[in-house]
């Protein structure tokens, strides 16, 4: 697949602004990867090569970073990424049953997009919102005090 990728004008401006924040180029890698992932949805090989060329960082180093962190995806993910917390407090209140229930309901697996490409479910560790356990992150917003039906209903509304 010889698709190409490059930052659109707005992201290129943001990229240059990022460079001014740090004293060396490598430090800007994480913010740049967030930027690229927002534009492309996930980080395939050609995005890695583009960033490698842009920032003069060896491609293997970028692959290492992408595979290390939970929030960078080297597999295609859907438009809406849903993080379901399965850590101690949330599991006490049924977080894991909700996760399994959602998987069964949307008939999908870890991170694989649903057939209509709308939703990707990801099993995550503590999201830092234990007061509203069990909770979920739907596109950067916390949704708490869930049960299976309210979770499904919340995800059905997503575009």
């Amino acid at each position, binding site marked *: 697949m010889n698709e190409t990728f490059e930052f659109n004008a707005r992201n290129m401006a943001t990229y240059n602004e990022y460079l001014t924040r740090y004293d060396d180029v490598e430090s800007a890698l994480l913010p740049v990867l967030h930027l690229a992932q927002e534009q492309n949805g996930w980080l395939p090989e050609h995005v890695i090569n583009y960033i490698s060329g842009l920032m003069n960082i*060896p491609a*293997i180093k970028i692959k*290492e970073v992408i*595979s*290390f962190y939970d929030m960078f995806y080297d597999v295609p993910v859907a438009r809406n990424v849903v993080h379901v917390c399965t850590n101690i407090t949330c599991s006490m209140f049924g977080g894991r049953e909700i996760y399994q229930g959602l998987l069964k309901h949307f008939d999908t697996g870890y991170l694989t997009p649903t057939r209509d490409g709308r939703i990707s479910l990801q099993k995550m560790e503590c999201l830092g919102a234990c007061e509203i356990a069990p909770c979920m992150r739907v596109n950067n917003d916390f949704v708490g005090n869930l049960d299976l039906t309210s979770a499904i209903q919340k995800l059905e509304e997503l575009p």
Partner: protein
Amino acid sequence: MTEKVNLTWNGKAIQAEKGSNLLKAALDNGIEVAHYCYHAGLSVAGVCRMCMVEQDGVPRPFPSCNATCGEGMVVRNDTPKIKSAVETTLQFHLLNHPLDCPVCDQAGECGLQDYYMKHGVYDSQMIDKKVHKEKVQDIGKNVMLDAERCILCSRCTRFTEEVTKTNELGILNRGDHAEITVNEQLKNDYAQNLVDICPVGALTSKDFRFKQRVWFLEEVQTTCIGCETGCAVKVSENKNGAFRVKPIYDHDVNGHWMCDDGRNIYKHVSSPTRLASATENINGLFVPADELAIQATLKGKKAKYILSTGLTVGEYANFFKAIKGSKAEVALYTLPNLGVEFDGLLKRGDKNPNLRGAKAAFEAAGFDHTQAALDKMLGSIASSDAVFVVVPEILYNEDHFNTLIKKVEKAGTRIALTPGETLGTLRSFNYLLPVPSFLEKNGEILNYQGAARTLRAGLSYGETSKDVSYYGKWVNV
């Protein structure tokens, strides 16, 4: 010289430079400290956690590879606490390690096997499912990768980052699913060093794959003749042949490394097509011949010798002594310069192993070693001449040598003294006479600095008693 400090390790007093690496000081003084990720030629990673030591006055054990030598330190790594720590850390190393010893080339020289014998738990508690990763991957430049055997000591990633600076290897993922992998195929010229520094069988050489078990091999310490650098190497061989070449640590010339070209210098020594005895070329067929008959045909012919730059200083001296007083003409064939002048690490374009030794010997004997002298001799070859050509052992590009052979064809009798097997290119010679290869002779060659690098003889795989000087005597007969 920096200031020396005294410290005691397990009760034994040792000396080391101030601020130098504590583990290096122990290893240099022959103290056995288990370690996987520390390598003298690389930066400190401190991830295998095998080299833990205790120091008086320091509450917690700490890895000795990340510590520096200070005056009066009392360090121990034989206390029961450290012993059990090393034992359990080794068990952690072995937890997800596959049971591959029967099919693994590293068996016999594997870091896990060695330390297991000394520090093993001997009754493993592991009955759970091991983590599986990708096995048998060919990652180019004769290197095979098996990510499952890897103990993630990161020596190879540090090597490609610091020594060759090509950043080709990396560790993906997190936790015990972390896996060594390559971005694309390996491209650097020092890839086989990865095989040497990998303490386990994760990186093995494709050229040596399943050829021989290492406990059947003995090692000969000699010098690489691949180019003028003259790296210190050891060749592993046994009666069936030579199998591989590995570098030896040498402070002045090659440090811990050697280049990939040098890895193939053993191939002609024990190859089945190596010349065994004197042979005669009867219209294209090489048939064993009797030396006396060859000497007979030389009578009355004018002898001309074209020597290669691969002989040792001793051989040149003996040769010139042998032809002393005779009317024989001698010239030197120097290999052409190949590739980049110097690649910044070890590899050099000048592929003549002993150019300086040859020039010195020629001048001492009053002969001209320049290319012009060689051309003059080639130009004046008549059918009444008998030309001896010493074939260079390592021929990187044969066509330059072939042009020499074409010019020699005008001679009456053409004799090739070949240590190797290059029978293909020697069709136009009348006689082929065997000479010993670099692995079968003791002597010295002068490398690019002019420093003497010793060659040592290992086992012999052909007629090795007759060297160039033996054939030099024929001219007076």
